[in-house]
């Protein structure tokens, strides 16, 4: 078997094994396509929330006092939302998007310390947000809002729960990248691996930017 000439060394020839039509990495386009799909996923959940907004037959309700069943007795219930805590969680999540950008900058410049530091901050922010959500769910449950209590409960827990699941997967992904970074396996030429995780993370944040006003602020 003769290797008469390597294809890549011919003048004007292309590197067949790394050829792409657009010059972009396949994985990046794939992640954008997946994000397009996820947009429809969350659009369906948010639409369901909006269609059933104000249709609950019993309390507790998000913004208004109502009649609800608590500890087995029917009684008056307070509105359930506590905006300050969620605002804090929202801010933390938004800042984490900035942090992952800084981590990516570190990765691309070969500044390992910078990458590991900001990536750790991102993971911590994500963990804080998930913890906030777990606390919120626990708290709401003890205020009388079970999953099947009313339509508000079902739509709220489903929408924010699926968002929280996405955040958790993002945290796992970023934590994996952090471990790889600490082991020195994210050199500048592999910064794309971190960029993909960051892209997903930004998307998860953007979804929350929609959910926060629609669910918590809109009356």
């Amino acid at each position: 078997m003769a290797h008469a000439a390597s294809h890549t060394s011919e003048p004007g020839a292309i590197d067949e094994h790394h050829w792409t039509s657009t010059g972009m990495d396949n994985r990046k386009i794939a992640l954008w396509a997946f994000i397009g799909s996820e947009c429809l996923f969350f659009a369906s959940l948010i639409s369901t929330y909006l269609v059933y907004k104000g249709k609950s037959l019993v309390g507790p309700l998000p913004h208004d006092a109502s009649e609800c069943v608590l500890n087995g007795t029917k009684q008056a219930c307070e509105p359930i939302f506590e905006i300050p805590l969620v605002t804090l969680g929202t801010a933390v999540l938004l800042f984490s998007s900035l942090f992952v950008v800084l981590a990516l900058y570190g990765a691309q410049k070969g500044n390992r310390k910078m990458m590991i530091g900001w990536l750790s901050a991102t993971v911590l922010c994500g963990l804080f947000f998930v913890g906030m959500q777990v606390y919120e769910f626990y708290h709401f449950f003890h205020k009388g809002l079970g999953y099947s209590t009313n339509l508000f409960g079902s739509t709220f827990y489903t929408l924010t729960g699926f968002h929280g699941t996405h955040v958790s997967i993002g945290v796992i992904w970023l934590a994996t990248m952090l471990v790889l970074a600490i082991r020195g396996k994210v050199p500048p030429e592999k910064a794309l691996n971190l960029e993909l995780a960051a892209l997903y993370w930004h998307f998860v944040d953007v979804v929350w930017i929609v959910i926060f006003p629609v669910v918590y602020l809109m009356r």
Partner: protein
Amino acid sequence: MATSVLEHRPPALPHAHPKTGIWSWITTVDHKRIGIMYGATSFLFFLLGGLEALIMRMQLIGPNGKLVDPDTFNALFTMHGTTMIFLGVMPLSAMFFNYFIPIQIGARDVAFPRLNAFSYWVFLLGGLFINASFIVGTPPDGGWFGYANLTSSRVMSATAAAPSPGLNIDFWVLGLQILGVASLAAAVNFFVTIVNMRAPGMRMLRMPMFVWMSFVVQVLLVLAFPVITVALILLMFDRNFGSSFFMPDGGGDPVMWQHLFWIFGHPEVYILILPAFGITSEILPVFSRKPLFGYTAMVFSGIFIGFVGFGVWSHHMFATGMGPFADTFFAIATMVIAIPTGVKIFNWVGTMWGGSIRYTTAMLSAIAMVALFIIGGLSGVMHSSPPADLQQTDTYFIVAHFHYVLFGGAIFGLTAGAYYWWPKMFGRLLNESLGKVHFWLMFIGMNLTFFPMHFLGLHGMPRRVYTYPEGLGFEFWNRVETFGSFMLAAGFLVFIVNIIKTWRGPRNAPADPWHGATLEWSIPSPPQEFNFPKLPVVHSSVPQWDARRAAGGELPEPELVSGEDIHMPNPSYWPLVAAIGVFLVFFSLLFIRTWPSWWMFTIFSVLWLFYGVYRWAFEPAH
């Protein structure tokens, strides 16, 4: 050509992976092998769906049929629809996507070969899951559309019983979720393949029409499947966790299910038909010896069909009473779709006009596809008008309509593709005489089965009802339909005979038996693992015709090369491990209502899935 040329197939290379045996198929990431596995699996499911249809036709052969009871009949039409759509036509199209998209755009494989294997295994497991319901005696029975209330697991009012307390609907809900994972993974994969893996010079507007229509389908899949995923999640929570998304007693609205379902369901119709449009657009030019008429118009009409296809879903719901504004909007949008479809039909006719036509089986099927689709398309325009639709909805007229587009359109298109591409896939030409017997049995049987349904529907015969009393004038045409359905079945028996006969015959197919226009005909039949020894450089939308013209009419057979310097992806079993993880997750949810403590098994399944995905992610791909 830079590589040296060998006379025969290359011997096994020292570091090469095994090329035969069951393990080579389980671990394969070759798009051609995965395509063949898609084809074999979905053809078996297709036969199963056909068997279900035959049992229904036997039940309806005369009034007061006693062959099956009403519950079984419900299960039969539910599983017939579900099987034909998700396990028959979609994966049969996926067979051609897998085998021919990479070759037609001049690539060596898809963008993500292991993800491709994952899609196939998830599809296989999902199909087995949903059909396992027959074995445990609880087949889905709520229709392929799964309308809420019929699919509820709990009591709606003090006087009513729960419509579906058993596992029937759970099998359907969770099975479709599994199949959705497969479809989404495959759609992202082919989307990236078409965007990013085209050979040098293969611009978007030089791509074969099959690739173009497939591209529109991938976009539809990516955007439509998440919507049914949400709908099925909400239904699952209604059934298992006591929410009321579709339950009026808790404030929910059953019509919400219909909206979510049809926002997915209507694009799904184009997901089923556009690949057949693409195949037809490949075959008509080749057997007319003329380039496709109006290539650019064909591309943009396909895109337009896909785009408007997202804005017509409520024409499935005129009977719910949405009010004049919504009715008008969706009626007009539906009628608008007839315009790009008409463009396509005129262009197909224009392609054949004045051509020197060869009536091979592939060509006959493609022409029949055009003709039958016109009939189905016209009856579709009829019930785009809400007043007409209110007369026709839930009658056999609708059944006639969608069988003309899905059998007459999609299945004839796929059959045409099978005869056209068989020599490329297996190196053997299917027998043309048996092929013509197959075609005519199928063509006549199809029209005998489905055309009388127009009459029965307009006479008021309701669909989905297990029998009918005598004296309503339904007897004659029902008997004709049952006769026709057995002709159809005979046609497919002839096809199976043809496959076996061809299989036993010699490898007789040259690289380019039909004088094709596109890149797949420039390489040996069947292609070597790497498809192209050297990536082709493309200068037009008919590269093989250009080469033929440049060579003065006849092209030499392409030679087999060893290709040992071509780096192909490694085989891997992690896609299968991850696919089993997906299966286990949904399997564990099957019993969550019966045994709530099964959540522990769900956790185990999720961990299994994560383990598979991690091993996959950290395994070197090359």
